[in-house]
């Protein structure tokens, strides 16, 4: 925040460009971070295959729209549907059958899953980087003296929509509240009629759908290849931790901060230090506020 104000004060127009570009990148991270949050807040598991859901979404979108020639909207729905089924199917076939699994076991399984998805994608689509056409053209437009491409607006809009829906779901609906309860105390939640296995399925379904849609919306800017999920997952995970794991607004704050920070650092300092500075800030924030910027202290036990 301080950095943003200082930058703005120093160089008005370039500062704005950096912030708007950073917000675009940050929204991508925020979407990834929310995927982590959904599963974490209802099962206490970190799903390391979250980035691969996005990769699969982007790859399927490419196949349907660029190869099969299906209209973009239908391709979008079809791709998200398939990845959602994969996510839900994975939960039912692999995680559900484990009786009393420890959190660590499931985390290790998700790492295995991510490797499997990458290998499968490489086998199906090859190693080439693929491009998807922007949803509404690539003609840049001016905004407050900075320029943006139309796809950025799609990303902003989708991020906003997602965070609002997530917030309503987890704070205003019985199912959402039940899911949070199931994570905090499975036994007590069962007693009041919440079924932890069911909440786990819902969480994986939402995370897969969210991951796939995010992967498709960012593909025109980011491109897609079989290994794109690794970096997306890493930055998304960092954002989730930075903002406060398991809390949707926290994921957004974390993602946007990381994105803006990276872009400003790349513009101000020799750009090779970009990732180093971004992760250094992450370490400092976590030393000062282990629960993340917006995270609340765990009150377990």
């Amino acid at each position, binding site marked *: 925040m301080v950095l943003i104000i200082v930058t703005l004060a120093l160089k008005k127009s370039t500062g704005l460009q950096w912030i708007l570009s950073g917000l675009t990148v940050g929204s991508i991270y925020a979407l990834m971070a929310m995927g982590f949050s959904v599963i974490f807040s209802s099962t206490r598991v970190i799903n390391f295959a979250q980035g691969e859901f996005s990769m699969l979404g982007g790859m399927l979108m490419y196949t349907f729209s660029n190869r099969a020639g299906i209209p973009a909207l239908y391709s979008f729905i079809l791709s998200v549907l398939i990845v959602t089924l994969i996510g839900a199917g994975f939960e039912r076939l692999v995680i559900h059958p484990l009786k009393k699994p420890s959190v660590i076991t499931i985390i290790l399984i998700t790492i295995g899953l991510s490797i499997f998805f990458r290998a499968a994608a490489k086998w199906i689509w090859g190693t*080439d980087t693929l491009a998807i056409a922007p949803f509404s053209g690539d003609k*840049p437009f001016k905004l407050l003296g900075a320029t943006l491409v139309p796809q950025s607006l799609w990303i902003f809009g989708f991020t906003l929509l997602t965070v609002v829906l997530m917030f309503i779901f987890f704070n205003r609906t019985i199912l959402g509240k039940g899911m949070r309860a199931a994570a905090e105390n499975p036994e007590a939640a069962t007693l009041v009629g919440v079924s932890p296995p069911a909440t786990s399925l819902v969480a994986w379904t939402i995370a897969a759908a969210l991951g796939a849609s995010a992967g498709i919306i960012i593909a025109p800017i980011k491109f897609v290849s079989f290994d794109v999920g690794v970096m997306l997952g890493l930055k998304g995970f960092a954002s989730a931790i930075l903002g406060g794991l398991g809390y949707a607004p926290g994921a957004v704050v974390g993602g946007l901060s990381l994105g803006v920070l990276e872009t400003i650092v790349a513009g101000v300092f020799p750009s090779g230090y970009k990732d180093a500075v971004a992760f250094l800030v992450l370490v400092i924030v976590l030393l000062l506020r282990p629960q993340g910027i917006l995270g609340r202290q765990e009150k377990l036990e």
Partner: protein
Amino acid sequence: MSGHRSTRILAFTTCLLMFLSFFFGGCGKKEDEPVTPTKEPYKVGAVLSISGPNAPLGTPEQRAIRLFEKEINAKGGINGHPLEVIIEDDESDPAKASTAVTKLITQMNVLAVVGSSGTGTTLAMSPIVEREQVPLVSCAAGAQITNPINKWVFRTPPTDTMALQKVLEYLKNTVKVTKVAVLHDANAFGTGGADALQAQAPNYGIQVIARESYGSTDTDMTGQLTKIKQTAAQALVVWGTNPGPAVVAQNMKQLGITIPYVGSHGIANKKFIELAGSAADGVVFPAGRLLIPSSIPKNSAWRKAVDRFAAAYKKEYQLEIDTFAAHGYDAIAMVAEAIKKAGPDRAKIRDEIEKLKGFVGIDGVYNYSPTNHDGLTADDLIMIKIVNGKWTEEKS
């Protein structure tokens, strides 16, 4: 109970995967069986980056090598001996490249080795072939591979230094600028290129007034470009491989930066145009002449070789040739030529490669000597400009 069930699922999945890999692995091998030659096969090894970040290089190289193997064996092999190429995948990892080359030399007893696709993987193999005294023909462009010269190591592609020389000549003579900015990938290829550019630019009366970098997987370079926009740079040199340079092209269009974009030979592929879309227009980069065959004198042996190779490659794989296919094809072709003259003797094969003069390949006409293991010169390159999504020769 549940433990058993999950074990069963795991075991089943493993079996399924093993079955699949045998099935598909088996398919690929069959067609390589030699037909006519009857004598004991001559074995040549190839270490290529078929997976990992360098896969876009290693894959076409593998295709070209298999094509050559098929062609030469259909014509009776080398002096009646079938050529057998054993290909190992180094996964773009230097450690795996050194394991693979050791295996090829000590267990498979190959006469010579082709590869690897990348500079790092080749450098890992270099001391091993020197120790084992086996000739190596690399398909990688890094200057360090032949500078200093390793007696046993040769290469086919034009070097990064030659590409850079071409770019600087173009900036000086055609664009006529004196101040440029450099934006490069932070990996070995990009950093090496930018270092060399900074070192050599003064020889051409060009000043590098800004230097920025980006990570190979970055999605947004507007931060770096905004900074460059404020400098007095008259042209931007971008040194990297896909997809980074495509993002730079798009971001430049977004920010309305209109100074000329000069790329590296790392974007000498149709992929760049596909990724950057309309933002690719106007981008200029150095590349082998084979990409625009009409730039090679008509009726020359080189032109005929390129046309023939392009047709054969298209027939076999339904694909257009690219520079990497050419690097692989030339490497295996010159090894075969040397074996033909020297017979199955590693040291003599090395001597014959070093003696090759006027050897017509796809990348160019090769001339090796004890003091030159590069074979090609900067004249084998041209500058290509992207106009309406198509490559056109840019006269310089």
